[in-house]
């Protein structure tokens, strides 16, 4: 019996059982409340109304130009609250190229709800791709003829939890730098990022102290930088390291750094069989770049598939200067079969600052910030 036959059979049975008449009120009518509950509901509605006004107050006033596909989950509310670009309607120009959508496998990403920003006076375009538990920022450079670059794109991902003010690092800015998509030797690198609404200014600072103000577009920026510069971004006066992509390989961590042990209880307990990451086909790239050691991983979260949400497992893997989060998401429970699939990996992040302002981890000199990255690059 297929989906539509099952649907028919169940709806017929529910009709016969009177499921639609049980509570005797219209499908989307006003629920019955007592006066107290009604007053409480009204106050909630007032708040929702304010939120609604805020959410609709984006810079783009026009209605969506095309019908976007509907995702299966809601965007993390903290993302919507922190990034104004997510508060404007989705437009047809926002659509992610199919090649990029194929990588949308972590954090319950909703590619249909991605928003695009074009960096003025360049051929660069960036997307913020939101998800239920995190988000990715993608960057690509269009060809000189203006066509989409199907040969490669860069991307970085981060769990939404790090955007919460209580745990945000460096104001939650999202920063990364790496070679341009064309990747010709000697070309300047790109430093790019997206800033939450709370950040109003960003400067790039080299280790030698040279400063340059960065222009943002809807919170996004992408500028060409010298690959040899050790770069920091100063967002509202707070210095953050910009994570280098595709650069200096890290030295593989041989033990869990003390800073991480202080920050995470799971790194203070013995490793068990469950802490082992079962498969990590893409993981080698992260290991190479951030010195993370899968042999030191710890299983941080494991949730079964329930109530329409897929099973999720998250491991934390320590490295030299970074800790990497690896997330695997199971197939949607409404599909068959639903085993955990090798759905991808994401995010390297320094975490010590999230727990204590005085932590000095990671080990990069004078670092006080974090970022995350992934390396979906096809060449």
């Amino acid at each position: 019996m297929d989906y539509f036959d099952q649907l028919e059979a169940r709806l017929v049975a529910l009709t016969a059982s009177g499921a639609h008449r049980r509570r005797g009120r219209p499908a989307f009518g006003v629920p019955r409340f007592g006066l107290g509950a009604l007053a409480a509901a009204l106050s909630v509605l007032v708040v929702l109304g304010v939120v609604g006004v805020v959410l609709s107050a984006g810079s783009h006033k026009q209605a969506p130009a095309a019908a976007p596909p509907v995702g299966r989950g809601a965007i993390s509310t903290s993302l919507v609250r922190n990034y104004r670009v997510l508060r404007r309607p989705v437009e047809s120009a926002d659509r992610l190229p199919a090649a990029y959508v194929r990588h949308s496998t972590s954090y319950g990403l909703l590619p249909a709800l991605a928003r695009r920003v074009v960096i003025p006076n360049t051929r660069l375009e960036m997307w913020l791709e939101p998800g239920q538990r995190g988000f990715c920022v993608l960057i690509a450079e269009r060809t000189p003829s203006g066509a989409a670059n199907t040969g490669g794109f860069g991307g970085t991902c981060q769990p939404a939890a790090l955007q919460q003010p209580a745990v945000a690092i460096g104001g939650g800015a999202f920063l990364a730098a790496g070679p341009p998509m064309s990747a010709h030797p000697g070309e300047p690198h790109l430093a790019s990022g997206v800033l939450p609404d709370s950040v109003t200014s960003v400067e790039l600072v080299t280790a030698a102290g040279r400063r340059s103000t960065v222009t943002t577009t809807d919170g996004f920026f992408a500028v060409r930088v010298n690959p040899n510069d050790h770069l920091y971004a100063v967002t509202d006066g707070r210095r953050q390291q910009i994570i280098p992509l595709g650069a200096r390989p890290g030295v593989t961590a041989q033990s869990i750094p003390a800073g991480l042990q202080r920050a995470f209880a799971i790194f203070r307990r013995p490793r068990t069989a469950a802490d082992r990451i079962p498969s990590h086909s893409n993981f080698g790239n992260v290991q190479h770049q951030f010195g993370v050691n899968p042999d030191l991983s710890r299983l941080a979260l494991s949730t079964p598939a329930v109530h329409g949400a897929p099973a999720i497992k998250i491991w934390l893997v320590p490295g030299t200067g970074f800790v990497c989060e690896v997330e695997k998401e199971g197939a949607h429970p409404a599909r068959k079969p639903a085993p955990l699939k090798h759905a991808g990996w994401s995010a390297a992040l320094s975490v010590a600052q999230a727990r204590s302002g005085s932590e000095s981890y990671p080990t990069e000199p004078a670092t006080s910030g974090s970022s995350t990255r992934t390396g979906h690059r096809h060449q």
Partner: protein
Amino acid sequence: MVHPGDRDRWSDSELLAAVAERDGEAFRAFYRRYLASILRYLMRETRDLEAAADLAAEVFAAVMLSAQRYRPQDDTARSWVIGIARNTLGASRRRGRVEDRARRRIGLEPLDLDDSDLERLASIAAGDGGPISELVDALPEAERQAVKSRVLEDRSYAQIAAELRCSEQVVRKRVSRGLARVREQLKEN
């Protein structure tokens, strides 16, 4: 005019009145009458097979809930049903996820959706020569042949394999790849 026992001959308003009075067979007749139209509408709007299937379930749950409030204005309830589909879709877009209020209200559990369901959905959506049939026509020869035989002509894998002189496994692979390509194209378009 009600024709007892033969609900296929009942008018939409007769069916909906009976649904309001807990007549499961009336709901079945109404569902069969409008499933294809609703799926085609949702496919045109979402260009997403899975979302269309999910939304269709919500639309029919809402139909069940709203049947008692139906007031006939035409010979058919087509515009009323499409209106429910439009509202469901609009609410889903606003919320960023497929609406499920009506299903929760009547206690309809999520249903499994697998490749064969998507095949059937593609077949229904292609029934009016819509965007899917164009995309199927654009598939590579081997995949087009397999998808058309399986999805549009509803032939068994064994029959197709015998005709194409290959294994059933190869046919399944071609159908699966072809459908994946169609889905990809739908999203891209």
